[in-house]
């Protein structure tokens, strides 16, 4: 989604001007020099920004746009990893086969449920935490930094720890459950338990990050709104609901979009949670996401063409989500 937006903007940047250069020849006269200088100045103002953003777009074209388009082209072929140059045209077959591919629909469903399981609690908790942090607290900076530490941890390290925590035989979660008299749970084997476990890793990593974004937005809300709400007799909770949340609406929308993109592309957490052969996402593919299915197709079964088709389908799903989001956002704006 972001890619198309940037690509559209990128087309305008094709004719970026060079850096202004002094014309050859020495100072031809005060009047002319002034004109030249002012023209250079105008060019500088008008074109320099394009020169400054150009490196990004050049890199984007090479490492973003080209792979995107080539993936689309490859998805219309039968390509195997053993011979990537041997491409045989199959038209839309890689896409039509996805329609009755149970593994694909299972992965799509898992991506959705894990997405909901992780995003909804994550954003609600982030909002709550941001609200708490917004109060005057002792050691406010400490709490803020602490919130961000999970985000700064690598996926691999975090997931490894979670795998140990959720272990069936020797895991700490089951040990704690046992202490209160609950039988051990085989977290990885169950559909809901495994999806819950994967979601909890996502929640753990991203809640703090979103909380800080909310906190920044909260600090931008003028104090007088709270004062007048307090004068009207609004309680803290009412202030939160009727002042804070409406003021945060654009920020909330932003975090929803970003989290949705992240959830659609979820890959590292379930892969590592699955351990050896994690690309399958469990014995019954109970936590195989679209990202994992793509990886399994391309790098385990070696069917690059089919993997490309999954990649493009994911891309189209994101476009769809973006369109729905944009419509919702427009509705929201109109209603205010």
């Amino acid at each position, binding site marked *: 989604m972001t890619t198309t937006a940037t690509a559209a903007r990128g087309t305008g940047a094709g004719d970026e001007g060079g850096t202004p250069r002094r014309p050859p020849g020495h100072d031809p006269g005060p009047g002319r020099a002034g004109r030249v200088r002012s023209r250079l100045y105008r060019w500088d103002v008008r074109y320099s920004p394009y020169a400054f953003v150009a490196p990004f777009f050049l890199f984007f074209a090479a490492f973003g746009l080209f792979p995107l388009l080539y993936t689309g082209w490859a998805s219309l072929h039968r390509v195997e990893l053993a011979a990537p140059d041997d491409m045989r045209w199959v038209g839309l077959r890689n896409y039509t086969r996805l329609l009755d591919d149970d593994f694909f629909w299972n992965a799509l469903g898992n991506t959705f449920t894990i997405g909901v399981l992780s995003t909804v609690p994550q954003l609600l908790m982030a909002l709550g935490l941001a609200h708490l942090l917004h109060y005057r607290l002792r050691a406010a900076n400490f709490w803020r930094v602490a919130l961000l530490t999970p985000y700064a941890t690598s996926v691999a390290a975090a997931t*490894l720890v979670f795998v140990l925590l959720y*272990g069936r035989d020797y895991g700490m979660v089951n040990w704690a459950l046992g202490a209160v008299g609950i039988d051990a749970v085989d977290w990885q084997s169950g559909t809901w338990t495994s999806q819950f476990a994967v979601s909890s890793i996502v929640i753990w990593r991203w809640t703090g990050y979103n909380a800080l974004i909310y906190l920044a937005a909260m600090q931008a809300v003028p104090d007088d709104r709270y004062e007048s709400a307090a004068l009207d007799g609004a309680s803290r909770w009412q202030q939160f609901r009727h002042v804070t949340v409406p003021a945060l609406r654009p920020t909330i929308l932003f975090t929803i979009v970003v989290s949705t993109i992240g959830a659609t592309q979820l890959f590292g957490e379930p892969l590592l949670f699955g351990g050896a052969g994690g690309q399958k996402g469990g014995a*019954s593919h109970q936590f195989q996401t679209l990202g994992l299915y793509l990886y399994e197709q391309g790098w385990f079964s070696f069917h690059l063409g089919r993997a490309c088709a999954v990649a493009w389908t994911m891309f189209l799903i994101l476009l769809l989500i973006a369109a729905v989001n944009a419509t919702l956002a427009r509705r929201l704006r109109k209603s205010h």
Partner: protein
Amino acid sequence: MRGSTGTYRRRAVVLGAVAALAGLLGGCARDGGTAASGTGGGGSGKTTITIGTFGVFGYKQAGLYAEYERLHPDVTIKESVIERNDAYYPQLLTHLAAGGGLADIQAVEVANINEVATTLSGKFEDLSKAAGVRRSDWLDWKWQQATDRKGRTVGLGTDIGPIAVCYRKDLFKKAGLPTDREAVGRLWAGDWQKYIDTGQAYKKRAPAGTVFTDSAAGVYNASIHAYPERYYDRRGKAIYADSPAVKASWDLAVQASRGGLTARLKQFEKPWDQAYANARFATVACPPWMLGYIKEKAGAAGKDKWDVAAAPRPANWGGSFIGVPKAARHKAEAVRLAVWLTAPAQQAKLFDRQASIPSTPSSYDMPQVRDARHPYFGGAPTGRIFAAAAKNIPTLVIGPDEQQIGTAFTDIGLLQIDQQGRSPRAAWKATQKEIENAVDE
């Protein structure tokens, strides 16, 4: 080096995952990586031969590189290692296709050798006619596996994986079973069914908190690798849906799982490692490369508790090859090094350090193998046990999608029965569906 399922030299999940991601990125970016780091060692006119491997081949640890460099002062050897074959092999494929980023010598695992010897054979040098190579040095079936229809040999055999059974003497004693390795071997000699029967006997008097074996998939792998035709027949036809080998091995594994003989673990995962440390199971099917793994995971507490007995039937699980890509920079030097590394004398030295069983039978009579005893396993004569198993291994027929098919049985079907409690019938159907989706192009 690994068999048709799973990777057996994984040391840590994290490392593996990092390697997997590195492999993914490497594959996309077609990077040269360390493997391509060119000619000349510091401008001294030396040739740098690069060798790309996965897991732990042990050449470096056994001092073979250093020895070769002493013999050839104008050569330096650089090894680049990727932890897991399932990250290593896809990267090798992309590098072969791109014709760049290749090491001068590339390792290939047995599960992938068929694909390399058929579809990719044109991209590798024919080593059968290289100077110093004697076909008769190798086990015949090992040589065949890396040879294409035209008789070109694209890889020289390194190690093989003859299977034994590792067992805990302390648990066997408590369960009233014999503990002497000869007597234990006799318990199940000739038939894996007897191994399951021994498991039933163990269960009746099992020490608290222990079971007979680690996993249904482990039983399946040990059994299936004894059959010449498993997933493909000799004509190359896929027979995974009704091959007798698969059916018999599947039934054994189901019996083990349903009979409560397994610890319901998945091999090469953290809980499996922890189970070693906690003495959770009494036996495990045990190719030579497993000995080091057990020693590491069971630790000092397991010393002299474990021992090695002969398996019911001779079988091969894992093993590798090394080949020289046509696009290699120093082909002639690389071929010389590959030939030297796989010669019987060097394979024997490697066994001494790494317990990798040579694929060259003449090594078996060399002192490093013949007289080898493993101190951790109660001084078991591992060299003789594995060499005896190696001599009777049948010629295994290997097909192109060996790895995907094997994994579907062990990581999908049998895991569903073992861990998720699904019925064997449903799990079988799921396995077949999994394979159809994986092999369909």
